[in-house]
């Protein structure tokens, strides 16, 4: 059975809740490895994680598109970029990925209400790491 | 005036070095400064060699790792410096003494125990030499002022003094080219143009030029 994007996200949620460290699935033509540990979360296989799209529970995920350390707030600010319950526009900055002295923005793929900030500030993230879960308001189409 | 009896060399952070010559505030000493400036401006790592009143500031391109070589070169350069006779132009500057701009005329006269007329005559009598430029664009420090009209600089500098003001600070006199803060005492003003960035040499006067103040008017 082909592994769907929705399956990966649900697997990630299950792993997170259960505290299981790693899971590897291999099927002809595709493979998936999810590794989770406290403080460092690695990306899911890029080919499967690349496209944004609504999950089975109708949320969209803002993802990192570069590897580095996730910052929930700018170092000069106490307040994080976003908080649960906050409305944000498509394209708004929801966090930063710090690579050396660079701060790359993580942007909201759709207008909506912030559900949760999934990634931990300071955590190592990679291309496709889920950062913020957003409940889209459906007025504008998600940007990939 | 506080002057050293031997050359003094001190740092201005990592941006520049200041060389202060001993001796009187007079033309022979200033000519040796001009000579030292001409020499020092050719040294590597020196951006500009800027004469002051019997002193010289050397600004750095990049600050030298160690300073001993430069300090030695300055001391040797001073010992070897012979007065540089710069032939200059003679400028006549018409001055209105007193009035709104020359508002310290009376207080300087009082401080020196002179009448306003005597102060004006003493100030306008010499043929002054431009010792140096500095302070602000086109400003000239003049040498040759009579020590009888010395007045120490202000306790607190004034935030705004008018352009063209003719002032006394300590035993020096000068003319400002534009309005701005000043610790000197304005005794008059002139309308002459001292600076224009579009001129080939932006400043009208240069070290070695001479200035004669002409008493156009005295407002008591």
């Amino acid at each position, binding site marked *: 059975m082909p592994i769907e994007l929705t399956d990966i996200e649900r697997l990630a949620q299950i792993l997170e809740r259960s505290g299981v460290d790693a899971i590897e699935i291999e099927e002809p033509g595709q493979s998936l490895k999810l590794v989770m540990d406290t403080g460092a979360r690695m990306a899911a296989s890029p080919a499967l994680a690349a496209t944004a799209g609504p999950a089975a529970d109708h949320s969209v995920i803002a993802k990192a598109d570069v590897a580095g350390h996730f910052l929930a707030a*700018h*170092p*000069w600010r106490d307040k994080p970029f976003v908080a649960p319950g906050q409305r944000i*526009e498509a394209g*708004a*900055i929801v966090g930063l990925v710090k*690579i050396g*002295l*660079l*701060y*790359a*923005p993580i942007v909201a793929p759709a207008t909506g209400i912030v559900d949760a900030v999934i990634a931990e500030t300071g955590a190592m993230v990679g291309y496709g790491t889920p950062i913020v879960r957003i409940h889209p308001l459906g007025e504008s189409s998600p940007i990939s | *005036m*506080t002057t050293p009896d031997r050359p*003094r060399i*001190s*740092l*201005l*952070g*990592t*941006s*520049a070095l*200041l060389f202060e010559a001993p001796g009187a*505030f007079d033309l022979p000493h200033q000519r040796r400064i001009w000579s030292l400036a001409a020499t020092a401006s050719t040294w590597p790592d020196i*951006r*500009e060699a*800027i004469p*002051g*009143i019997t*002193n*010289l*500031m050397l*600004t750095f391109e990049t*600050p030298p790792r160690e*300073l001993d070589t430069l300090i030695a070169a300055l001391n040797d350069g001073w010992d070897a410096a012979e007065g540089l006779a710069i032939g200059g132009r003679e400028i006549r500057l018409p001055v209105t003494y007193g009035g709104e701009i020359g508002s310290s005329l009376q207080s300087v006269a009082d401080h020196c125990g002179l009448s306003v007329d005597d102060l004006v005559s003493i100030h306008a009598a010499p043929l002054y030499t431009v010792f*140096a*430029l*500095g*302070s*602000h*664009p*086109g400003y000239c*420090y003049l040498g040759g002022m009579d020590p009888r009209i010395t007045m*120490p600089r202000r*306790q*607190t500098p004034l*935030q705004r003094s008018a352009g063209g003001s003719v002032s006394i*600070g300590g035993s*020096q006199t000068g003319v400002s*080219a*534009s*309005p*701005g*803060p000043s*610790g000197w005492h304005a005794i008059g003003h002139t309308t002459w143009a001292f*600076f224009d*960035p579009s001129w080939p*040499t*932006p*400043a009208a006067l240069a070290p070695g030029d001479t200035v004669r103040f002409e008493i156009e008017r005295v407002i008591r």
Partner: protein
Amino acid sequence: MIEILSVTGPASVQDLGRFDQYRFGVGTSGAMDDVALRAGNILLGNDENAAGIEIPMMPFRLRFDRDTAFALTGAGVEAEIAGRTIPPWWRSQARAGDVLTIKAMPRGARCYLTVGGGIDVPTVLGSRSTQFRGEFGGLHGRPLQPGDILPCAASTATIGELGVEPADVTLARAAASADETIVRVVIAGEYDAYDEATHALFWRSSWKITPQSNRYGYRLQGPTVKPRAPIEKRSHGIVPGVIQIPPNGQPIIQMRDAQTSGGYPKIATVIRADLWRVGQARLGGKLRFEQTAYADALAAEAEMSAYLDRLRTNVRLVEEIRACR
């Protein structure tokens, strides 16, 4: 083209300054926070000496008349354009007609707006910096006013959003507190004209930056600092950072638009590597001076240069990665 819509306080066009005109009495001018100006230019791939706008007071509004890449560095400001917030030390792309609004400046004292290619005013005596005293350079030698149109050099391709770590994070110094900035200084020629007790007073005081502080100089308030005997010096050259003590005993730090010479006694000079910290210290804030040897001052400059080198390399890498994708 940029059109200035509203200004509070003396905003001006500045590059890194004019450095070889002292012999005409022309001081450096240039950005009070040279590190921030350089960082903004690095973010945009400009020559580091490209001219930008120094903005010392808010609110400030301008309109981009063409698509323009821009950066905001220096002070921490609340800024937005086309409905989106601009984080600190950030570059972004403006579309023709977009209005940039900088509402407030909760942190720092000067914000720098740089644009792709730089502000294209004429160079005067080797620099685009505004010379207020001489009324030349920048835009007609004066502060910016509503209605002013600033030409921008032709900009390059559209850039992507990106931020960099602010200088005061990378170059953070121990023992700095919220409203007190510690500034390293090298003692100057007249230091020994003050006695031991007065030295101690100078080093341990938390000097208040009075409202009379500006690009000419920072006038400080604190205990009276008097020499053993009154000093009146012959006029001599000074540079930005020189701390003079007039007879009233209250220090003045000469800054970018200061006179190029003076005769008040000098107790110390702010090191070149910390001038930007003074430039970002707010009116009403405090300064404390830390005695520094020449060699250590050079080391501090090397540290500052290293930060800018890293920024340059990092930003260039981003462009290369983008080109490959």
